[in-house]
């Protein structure tokens, strides 16, 4: 019993990871857009589970709060209110298949390389554990403190650049919406 529980505890990451991939499969392959969003939600919750199984409880809960609680709700709103069948008949979706397939293939190769290095490479045991040293913390910090020290002290410049990228995406969305209306 004890051994079984310990084994389950150690493999929770793999379990949640597979479930997340399953949710992503539902997201891509289901016919109904709302079912896709449910798959997406499931996938997001499972990713939060992955974070939790790596003892990154702050990241896990933030994932739940931001993605599952915020972003997917907005997705659902849009999908629920837009009649998608109309656009399916016009054939405006899935027009880029012949470009997409080679790109996905290249992406798969790259990810396979990364996963191979992370899971079986020389630094495999450290890759999946929280390292206080990375954020320059000497004392034993809590999760939230470690993340915030990383974001707002050690990596403040990349963090701000990321937010500028988000701003670019926002302006882009406004521009797209504007041109459609004129």
């Amino acid at each position, binding site marked *: *019993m*004890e051994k079984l*529980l*310990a084994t389950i*505890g150690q493999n929770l990451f793999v379990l949640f990871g597979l479930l997340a991939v399953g949710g992503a499969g539902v997201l891509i392959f289901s016919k*109904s857009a*709302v*079912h896709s969003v*449910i798959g997406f*939600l499931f996938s997001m*919750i499972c990713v*939060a589970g992955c974070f939790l199984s790596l003892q990154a*409880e*702050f990241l896990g*809960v*933030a994932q*739940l*709060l931001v993605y*599952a*609680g*915020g972003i*997917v*709700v907005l997705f*659902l*709103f849009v999908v*629920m*209110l837009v009649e998608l069948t109309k656009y399916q008949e016009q054939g405006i979706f899935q027009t880029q298949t012949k470009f997409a397939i080679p790109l996905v293939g290249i992406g798969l190769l790259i990810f396979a390389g990364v996963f191979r290095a992370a899971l079986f490479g020389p630094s495999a045991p450290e890759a999946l554990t929280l390292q206080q040293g990375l954020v320059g913390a000497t004392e034993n910090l*809590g*999760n*939230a403190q470690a993340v915030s020290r990383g974001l707002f002290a050690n990596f403040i410049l990349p963090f701000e650049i990321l937010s500028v990228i988000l701003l670019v995406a926002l302006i882009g969305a406004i521009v797209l919406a504007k041109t459609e209306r004129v």
Partner: protein
Amino acid sequence: MIPMTPTLTQYLVISLLQIVVVLGFVMTLVPLLTFAERKVIAYVQVRLGATRVAGGLWGAQQGRTHQSRTFTGGLNGLMWWLGRVPVFSILRGLPMFIADALKLLTKEDIVPVNADKAVFVLSPALAMVAAFTVFAAISFAPGALFYFPASFPFLGGLPFNGFLTDINVGLLFILGVASVGVYGIVLGAWASNSKYPLLGGLRSAAQIVSYEVPLTLSLLVPVVLTGSLNFNEMSTRMATDVPVNGLVGIGRSLLMFVGFFVYTTCGFAETNRTPFDLAEAENELVAGFHTEYSGMKFSFFFLSEYASMITVSALATAFFLGGHYLLPFGLQPVWNHFFEHSSNAFMAWTCAPSILWFLLKIFFLLFVFLWVRATLPRYRYDQLMNVGWKFLIPYTLIMFVIAALLRYAA
């Protein structure tokens, strides 16, 4: 007693026991709450409320209550005979809550023909799971409630804690899991494939998403004041932190006082209760998102609404009303200063944390929920959005700045 570290299996067994206790508590509280709702609103509106099912120590009895031979029935009969209104009429109709539960269980379960069946079944479950998982991070008492006696098989000497888990980010966990509950409403509304549920679902989803912002911001005040996200640590420090000087202490208490009202207002909106129950505005929307639901599926929505009322009350209690201590709004240190070393055992006891205070405050806040429902009319939809975006969010931001200043001063 030397604290023992439980093995994984023991830990699992204790956790399961705790889950059973907490679930049992919530599941009994909810039907009682629906009964209390009838009685309290009746009392406010000078009616008697549910009286037809007479309750006594020897079971339920239907019929002419003042002649029934049950225990309370007998006392009430005596009072009728004396020509007075029976005081025990508060117990009349109590078995009604069992009847209500049985009715929900035995009602026909209808799934509309054009509904999306899988999502239609999934969404009440989602609402209920979200509403109940939250209790994993709520602490009913700090530390152990009791220790299993050493002779107890398998679990001897281990503590039975007043909380399920003591995670470092307990508050965020509660907010995150509770925010998943909105899917139950939106998906249920969509899956019904009917106009009224869809409109009601959209309304309440917009309401919940907008009020989540001031709710979270108002909870940031205790986070900033205590510098922690751990439920136990936050509630204890909010109740007992001794201020560095009087001015900071007074400011802190005032902030908690205002914060309590702001938080409770947002909590009312989050749980879709009057005066914010636009999702089920009967005069406009039939019954809102659960129009097409019946039987057990409906009662899942019902249970989750009442469970989230308990959650909101628990959070308000923990962070603004002094949590496991006697006095609200951070006044406990003053009380402790005078009575902590008192020779009177009772007064010394009131200085210590206890599950009793926590539960009493929760019950009082649940009463406030019913009280408000009996008193206030419903907001109009544009008023609701105005209150949320134009008043509550600026207020909470100002509170947040003041909290940061107080933290800086401390």
